[in-house]
């Protein structure tokens, strides 16, 4: 089929390359611990992810946009269900037991949010979007966000915001309105602080003053910076990082995988990896620009927004410029839901790209 040629092989290649680096790093960070062998599971998920990508890329994105309202209602319902029956793992209700897999619904909802926002701004309008649209989008994104927050999963809930922002931005919201919204958001922060969980407050505090309690909440952040910093230019070499091997770095296979990677491969390895991510994102933006229509472009840009947010916040946390929020590094962190979501999202982008030459 000629359409396979139109698949974005470059983006797929970059994604696979990053995922392979991730599997190597998961292996290196967990060998000799109770998590040893977890990388095998990650390989299965990678294969499943690639299959998912191909499957999703066969689904016409127009159908997705059409089904947006139904997908949205389904999502809100599922999130509600999670709150009720979701398994309490790590004191948060994020997973729905689905056979042998635990499905993290909020990851899938991310995809739905992308579709909903794309659908909202896809139509031509007489006037540029204004505050009214901002409020509508806010409500649309806000309901599932609050449900995810109630799980509680602040990190994932926050990933919905960049999608909304990207939609408003590309939808044409005025600069001025954007700035006012940003200010409003800042003003809401103190209110949010009051409703935050103690551990979340502690994380934020330790981000602002990491030396205040180096063995308590600031521990993870400090250990992560020690791991990254001691990597130096060339890194300590694979399987030699004392921070990772000595178990000083917490969860080196998931949230702090970048710190473990940077310890072992140093500054050069770090910027190389960041460059791969940037290349992938830029390639997707390029796909968005050549999308056959506004809806398709918005879909891809939604994917870009989520992935970029993940990468920036996760790496930012590892190097100490962002607070600890426990969101995974896409394609690298160990964990099936995240990997499957990423490949599904890439699948959507692929479908948009493949549709650009098709006229029906």
């Amino acid at each position, binding site marked *: 089929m000629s359409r396979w040629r139109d698949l974005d092989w470059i983006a797929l290649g970059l994604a696979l390359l990053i995922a392979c680096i991730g599997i190597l790093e998961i292996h290196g960070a967990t060998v000799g611990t109770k998590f040893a062998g977890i990388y095998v599971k990650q390989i299965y998920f990678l294969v499943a992810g690639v299959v998912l990508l191909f499957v999703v890329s066969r689904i016409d994105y127009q*159908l997705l946009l059409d089904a947006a309202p139904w997908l949205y209602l389904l999502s809100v319902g599922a999130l509600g269900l999670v709150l009720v029956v979701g398994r309490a793992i790590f004191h948060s209700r994020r997973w729905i037991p689905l056979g042998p897999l635990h499905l993290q619904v909020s990851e899938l909802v991310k995809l739905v949010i992308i579709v909903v926002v794309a659908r909202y701004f896809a139509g031509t309008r007489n006037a540029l979007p204004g505050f009214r649209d901002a409020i509508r989008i806010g409500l649309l994104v806000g309901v599932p966000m609050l449900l995810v927050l109630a799980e509680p999963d602040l990190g994932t809930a926050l990933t919905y915001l960049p999608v909304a922002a990207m939609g408003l931005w590309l939808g044409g919201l005025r600069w001025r309105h954007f700035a006012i919204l940003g200010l409003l958001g800042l003003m809401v922060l103190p209110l949010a602080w009051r409703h935050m969980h103690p551990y979340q407050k502690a994380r934020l505090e330790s981000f602002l003053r990491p030396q205040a309690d180096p063995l308590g909440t600031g521990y993870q952040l400090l250990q992560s910076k020690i791991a990254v*910093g001691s990597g130096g230019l060339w890194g300590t070499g694979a399987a030699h990082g004392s921070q990772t091997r000595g178990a000083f770095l917490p969860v080196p296979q998931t949230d702090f995988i970048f710190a473990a990677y940077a310890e072992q491969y140093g500054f050069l390895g*770090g*910027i190389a990896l960041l460059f791969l991510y940037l290349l992938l994102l830029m390639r997707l933006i390029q796909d968005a620009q050549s999308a056959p*229509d506004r*809806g398709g472009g918005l879909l891809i840009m939604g994917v870009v927004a989520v992935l970029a947010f993940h990468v920036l916040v996760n790496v930012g946390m590892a190097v100490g410029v962002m607070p600890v929020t426990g969101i995974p590094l896409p394609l690298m962190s160990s964990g099936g839901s995240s990997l499957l979501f990423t490949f599904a999202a890439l699948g959507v982008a692929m479908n948009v790209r493949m549709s650009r030459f098709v006229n029906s």
Partner: protein
Amino acid sequence: MAIRYHSDDVLPGSRIRVVQFLLAAAFLVLVLALWQLQILHQRHWKQLARDNRVRTEPIPAPRGRILDRRGRVLVGNYASFSALLVRQEEPHWRADLPAIAAGLHLDLAQLQQRLRRQESTPTYQPILLKDNITPADVAFIDSHRDQFPELETMTISRRLYPSDGYAAQVLGYVGEATPADMAHYHVAAGTLVGKSGLEAYYNKWLMGKDGLRRVMVNSRGQVMGHLPGVPPTPGHDLRTTLDATLQNAAEEAMGDRPGAVVALNPQNGQVLAMVSTPAYNANDFTFGITEKEWRALLDNPDHPLLNKAIQAELAPGSMFKIIVAVAGLEEGIAQHQVVDCKGGATFYGHYYKCWVPTGHGITNLAKALTQSCDVFFYTLGNKLGIQTIAHYAKALGLGRRTGVDLPGEEPGLIPTPAWKQRRFHQPWWNGQTIIVSIGQGPIETTPLQIAHTIGGIAIGGTFMRPHLAFNGEVPAADHPPNHAPKEFTFPLSAQVVSAVDAGLRGVVLPGGTAATAEIPGLDWGGKTGTAQTVSDTTFKHLGRKLRRRFMDNAWFVALYPLQNPTLAICVLYQHGSESYYAANIASQVVAAYARERRKRQNTIAARLRHALGATPRHWALVAPPPPPARRSAPSQP
């Protein structure tokens, strides 16, 4: 079928470019953050990573031993086991405390109090739970390794003191460093430092330098490997001038009588024996004494913690007559003074009794010293006046610290009109001069001062600073600064010295005040002293029990041999009432000294005779012992 969402409408290019620009900028921020961490501050973070995984533990350095003049060990070390709490090993150690306290037979409340005090120490530093644990405790820890992984045992070198209180106050004891000690000696908390006696004075010399053990650990504190550490530098041995044999004789002679004995060589100032009774068992202090035991020591009316040889400031009684005699001889009065003692005499309208109610009759200086005639010295003191007496007393070394190398020496007191004005805002009464002339009233001396001063007079007026460490063996940096002069002189003519000697010889001969202390065939002498602790009238009103507590102090100062003595002894027997008791104690020490000297001379003579008739290599037998280990020169590491 599907509705196209405006396929002709594309995304605004300018806004896409803004997104691209922002993305690139954000990634640049990450790269800069990476650059800062991994390139700019690389060393800082690498050091932190090393600190993370390398745990350093001190290895206590064994303290140097304290030896007597011939190398016999007075204070040594032995290995003991201690129980440690490694808090990193088990974060829930607090819950185990009651079980641990029961297993190690510790008081839970006391244990918790001690742990609270060490709350601020980093968790990787183990906390000492119990010292000198018994084999049963070791078995308890070994058999509960799974249940209480936070328990560890450690071998420590411990101080071993003579258990019977032998020279206890002189040797001193060690204890855990206080914050002040930690600052002064630059040591970590928990280090043992000298608290009193020689242990405190020569702490720096004895202490040594702790080593370091470095182990690699993971985040749970589990040891993953070892790194090269620093071995501890043991402390230096301290060779003292004490003679264990003589010390032993003095200890035995004192028995359980409260008081003090000092024996020194006036020729060089070396202290040969120093006893203060009652004493304590210094080993009790090594492992922390209980509150009750400590209170008992503090409340003991006989003050076992005091080193009375240097800290008991008491009226010297008739021993002071020697100083008055020297003053009188130097002033040219005493040689010619003869009094007719009728059991007392009147001065300034007040009658002063002699200790012999019937009187001594016609008395010259020699007789006055031998029989301790008070009237003779009342008269002599009255002629000299308080200023002259005080001048000689001070010039001969009284009224100030001798500068012995022990902490806490007291200066004593020689009264003067100026002192009385300053202290009591009262003029001096002439009657007080009479009292001071026989060593009573507001005059205070320590046993060491008496031995030092009388010994110095007996060798012609050269006063060597008393000391317990051989001169020059301990570098000045390793003990507190000593401002007392190494020696001072107040030259006395041979006539003066022999006049005093003549009187002192008779004291321990029939007719003398300490005739019972005579040692046939031994040329020695001394002077008795009986000092009231309260006035006669007060004493009469005391009950029977209190009378015992306020009975006169018995003193004796002895010299051997009388000509150019090498031994000066001062004995204080508190509330001993009769001074010849003190003299008997002194005579035992003198006898022991003479016996030892004769034995050594015989051995040396025999070896010499043997050596002279044999091959030269036998000379080695009489060669001096090898010099003691000296601190290496500063240029060497």
